[in-house]
């Protein structure tokens, strides 16, 4: 069997102030999978994400991306392979124009000229934002900024796309459009979310993180219908949504 795209073993981490956020996390994501990472506020999801591209260094345990260990000497390649889309697009978009922002990542990888332009055009096309290439990001709507943020990461042609709460603050139409975009991408996806119907719709598999440990890992439907598990970890289905009666996506 091939190496998993993401291979996290025994990952533990304490913040410098002493607060321990992760207590031995194991997580494997294989090529082409779409996995939802669920868990209550403060469970350690964002902390885990920050380890995947080497922004935080594990206190114990290892992280490997397609067989490449996340270590200081590999950071450049790791960050090309793992594309992280942060929760707030205003943090992600910091250049004066959409084009400059989408170029930022691939230009850091050393691309110039025609190849750079091809990356910009194709990634904006994939998120349906081609018409906005010369606009300043701060004049776009929130949903548009979220999509450009996804494009900035796609432009690096990552092996795995990590999305931190992609559906937050989106109106229902933008939320559905983003779902269509995510489904249309042929990349491996790890999606952190509190939006359980969204996880059900997009991700065949879910992992539940609670208090810094993985407490469940399985088909999304089975996780969501396990009332005892859900209750024990502060997960609640929104009013009117019942995976037992909703047809499988």
């Amino acid at each position: 069997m091939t190496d998993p795209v993401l291979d996290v073993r025994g990952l533990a981490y304490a913040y410098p102030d002493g607060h321990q956020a992760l207590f031995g996390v194991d997580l494997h994501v294989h090529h082409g999978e779409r996995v939802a990472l669920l868990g209550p506020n403060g469970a350690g999801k964002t902390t885990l994400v920050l380890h995947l591209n080497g922004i935080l260094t594990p206190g114990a345990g290892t992280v490997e991306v397609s067989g490449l260990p996340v270590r200081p000497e590999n950071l450049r390649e790791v960050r090309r392979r793992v594309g992280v889309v942060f929760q707030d697009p205003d943090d992600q978009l910091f250049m004066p124009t959409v084009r400059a922002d989408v170029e930022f990542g691939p230009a850091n990888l050393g691309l110039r000229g025609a190849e750079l332009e091809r990356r910009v055009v194709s990634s904006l096309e994939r998120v349906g934002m081609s018409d906005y290439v010369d606009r300043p990001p701060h004049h776009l709507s929130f949903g548009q900024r979220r999509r450009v943020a996804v494009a900035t990461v796609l432009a690096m042609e990552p092996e795995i796309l990590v999305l931190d709460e992609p559906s937050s603050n989106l109106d229902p139409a933008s939320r559905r459009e983003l779902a269509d975009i995510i489904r249309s991408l042929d990349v491996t996806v790890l999606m952190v979310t509190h939006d359980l119907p969204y996880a059900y719709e997009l991700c065949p598999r879910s992992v539940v993180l609670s208090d810094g440990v993985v407490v469940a890992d399985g088909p999304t439907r089975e996780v969501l219908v396990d009332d005892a598990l859900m209750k024990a970890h502060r997960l609640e289905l929104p009013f009117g949504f019942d995976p037992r009666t909703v047809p499988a996506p």
Partner: protein
Amino acid sequence: MHLLPAHTKIAALLCFVLVVVATPAQATWAFAVYAALLVVAVRASGVPFGYMGRRMVVEVPFVLFAVLMPFVAAGPRVHWGPLSLSEPGLLGARGLLVKGTLGVVASLLLASTTEPSDVVAGLDRLRLPHQLVEIMSFMVRYLEVVTGELARMKVARESRGFRPRSLGSWPVLASTAGALFIRSYERGERIHLAMVSRGYTGRLPVAHPLSASVAQWRLAATVPAAALVTFLVAVSR
């Protein structure tokens, strides 16, 4: 003029301002020529005069300072009605007003024909240290975010009945400023994370180096060149 590459315009502005500042204050006619040159340039750029006029308010502090000079400066005095004015002060005020106005108009012309982000790119092309250029480009981008944050905090305050009237409101305003500082700082940190995640290593990549043709340089040079000729004539007399 909107189409000229930013760095040619910046270089032109810099030369023009240097020439203006170097011109001795007595050469009245030279300043008249400079002013005429600017009028022609504004005309050619198509920026409406009214728009330029409104943005001239940035000059107000200079004007105030210039008005004060004749009262406070030392030296021989002239009497004008009930007022006693310093003679060097008057001359200095006139020089300051004239040179200041010319400089402000020229800068406004640059500002109204160039996007802030292009000004930054132009400075980079002119080999300003890249740390400085980077700080400026973030400022341009984040001014909007910070002012937006400030506006939201103001709305939040006022929705809960706050009125910044009395002295008693100062602590509230001070804590707003503190919160704004912390929020901006934390945002800065998050932005840095996002940059590092996309392979940032301390230097912004220059994806499209700016370049200007000889013709464009020549066009940008017309105003400062004309000003320089005027200057040479003025000082050689």
